[in-house]
């Protein structure tokens, strides 16, 4: 509502500047409001920009206020769609007035980045990462690290763990993975957008974690893949459940999506999928849409957009370092979009 009331004077103002001809079009344009996750913001804003060329009668306004806010606002129906980096909990979903659909859009991954002399290519498995983040493995030349990295000279330095201090979907994917490989992590720390970290320092945002890892010799932390690629950070290869060490790439994430078990309601975690070439620390991001749309005109436009996003929009994902949905998942998502009534 807030954004709406802000936008009306804006539209009116632009109408004054653009003259009567354009003003008519501006007032006829429908505005669809959304709010939520920050992680997919770049791809969503690209989609909204491109979609104007497809259908100029509708305009999207997306506020990247965070997944918590996105879930709250769609539950309160103050926005037309929400967005979240984690699937909604059963408790939150139960608060929805009507059936709320999860529409997966793109996937991203977390990478383990580090600061070692010369930054050699490291290989690690899940239990090792858990014990590093538990504060149990404290030296770089620990036998478990040395054994997985033959030929790499690991220094006798302390490992300094850096994690995100702000609540984020990136953290959710990370602890989701750690929980999936370790019962101990699951019971002592658990899953969440913020957790009670057993060890380490907190940095704000990807840039805060990357900044501290870069500055502190011997530091290790996790950042989003897109951020690591753009800033050319060293990324460890991680052992997947098939036993292969896999580099985090868009292909290995799409492979993870293709082999992950995706339930009927699309609320899934895709860490540790069975695929041979799948990178194990990845997660999806979702749009949240009501199955029964109150406003018929808006509902129609929203469905048209969702179809376009899944059919055409997915091809823009890779240029922004997101992994697109594989064809099999896309088909299922399109089927689901068909069930939206308006």
């Amino acid at each position, binding site marked *: 509502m807030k954004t709406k009331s802000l936008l009306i004077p804006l539209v009116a103002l632009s109408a004054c500047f653009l003259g009567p001809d354009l003003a008519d079009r501006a007032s006829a344009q429908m505005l669809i409001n959304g709010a939520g996750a920050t992680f997919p913001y770049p791809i969503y804003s690209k989609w909204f920009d491109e979609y104007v060329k497809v259908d100029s009668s509708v305009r999207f306004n997306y506020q990247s206020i965070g997944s*918590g806010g996105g879930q709250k606002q769609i539950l309160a129906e103050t926005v037309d769609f929400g967005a979240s980096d*984690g699937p909604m909990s059963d408790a939150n979903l139960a608060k929805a007035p009507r059936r709320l659909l999860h529409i997966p859009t793109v996937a991203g991954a977390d990478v383990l980045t580090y600061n070692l002399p010369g930054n050699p290519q490291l290989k690690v498995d899940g239990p090792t990462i858990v014990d590093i983040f538990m504060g149990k493995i404290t030296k770089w030349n620990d036998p478990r690290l040395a054994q997985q990295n033959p030929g790499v000279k690991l220094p006798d330095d302390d490992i300094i763990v850096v994690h995100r*201090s702000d*609540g984020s979907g990136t953290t959710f994917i990370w602890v989701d993975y750690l929980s999936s490989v370790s019962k101990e992590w699951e019971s002592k720390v658990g899953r969440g957008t*913020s957790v009670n970290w057993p060890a380490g320092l907190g940095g704000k945002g990807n840039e805060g974690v990357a900044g*501290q890892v870069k500055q502190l010799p011997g530091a290790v932390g996790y950042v989003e893949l897109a951020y690591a690629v753009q800033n050319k950070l060293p990324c460890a290869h991680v052992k997947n459940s098939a036993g292969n060490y896999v580099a985090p790439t868009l292909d290995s994430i799409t492979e993870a999506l293709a082999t992950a078990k995706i339930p009927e309601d699309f609320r899934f975690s895709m860490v540790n999928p069975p695929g041979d070439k799948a990178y194990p620390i990845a997660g999806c991001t979702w749009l949240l849409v009501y199955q029964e749309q109150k406003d018929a005109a808006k509902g129609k436009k929203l469905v048209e957009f969702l179809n376009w996003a899944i059919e055409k929009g997915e091809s823009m994902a890779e240029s922004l370092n997101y992994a697109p949905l594989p064809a099999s998942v896309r088909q299922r998502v399109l089927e689901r979009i068909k069930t939206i009534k308006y």
Partner: protein
Amino acid sequence: MAKAAAKTELQAPPEKLVQRRWGDAVFERTSLLTALSVFALLALTGYELAHGSRLALHKFGWRFLAGSEWNPVSEQLGALPFIFGTLVSSAIALLIAVPLSIATAVYLTELAPQWLRQPLTLFIELLAAVPSVILGLWGIYVMVPWLREHLFPLLKTTFGFLPLFQGPIYGVSMLAGGIIIAIMIVPIITSVSREILRSVPGLQREAAYALGATRWEVTRIAVLGYAKKGLFGAVILGLGRALGETMAVTMVIGNTPQIKASLFAPGYTLASVIANEFTEATTDVYLSALFEIGLVLLGVTILVNVAAQLLLKTFGGPGVKPQN
């Protein structure tokens, strides 16, 4: 008012005067309204925070203030490490900023040559205009590495016998947080102190000189002694800002909710945890606890200010009061 009423009874004032009085009344009421709106704002803020935090208030009660665990997953939430972090980082900031700011203000008003005063003042005010996120990034990439490589090892070897300077050095730490706050509050304390020192009457100085005081004695007794109360007010203004500083502090303090004696250990502040976790807080109790953190911050700020006012009443003498 009573006097004025008595006068009107005796003799009706000329029409023009009545009109002006009516204008005065309007002016008085309007300004009273604006003044009251400050109270209303504070009360509303307090009410909204209390309303938002009722779930957490109900669930944790007073334990919230004493709890030192912050676990959003199991919803065991306590504010003590954040209260500790806020108070300690602000105290460090004041310890550094107060001598620096007052010395600068004294130089600017008493000692600096005329041509230097204006440009120097301008620079100090420019420092206040640096956005805190910029200062925070500078903190991560420039200040923290320098502290880790140079200042902290030096402190550790020199004062390592104190528990304050023991333990591993990461760079990001309570001390780094305090230093960045100090940088942010120096401009405000300096500007206000300078205005106060300027308003010390010239007669004060002349009288002291006439008694044969040296320049140092004039500054210490006639100027600083006279302006003591006002300078204290300037410090309080700085403290208010220090308690609420968020972004830059978050970037260098290490964001770890723990209570450690060492200033090299990372800490966390009330304002930082709200900024960090509010957007992604999905459960009701968790969100409510963050509201309560806000309520605690408001409470801490009020308490510290009241304590400072009491301190001023007890130890402050007569003299110039702060202008703003």
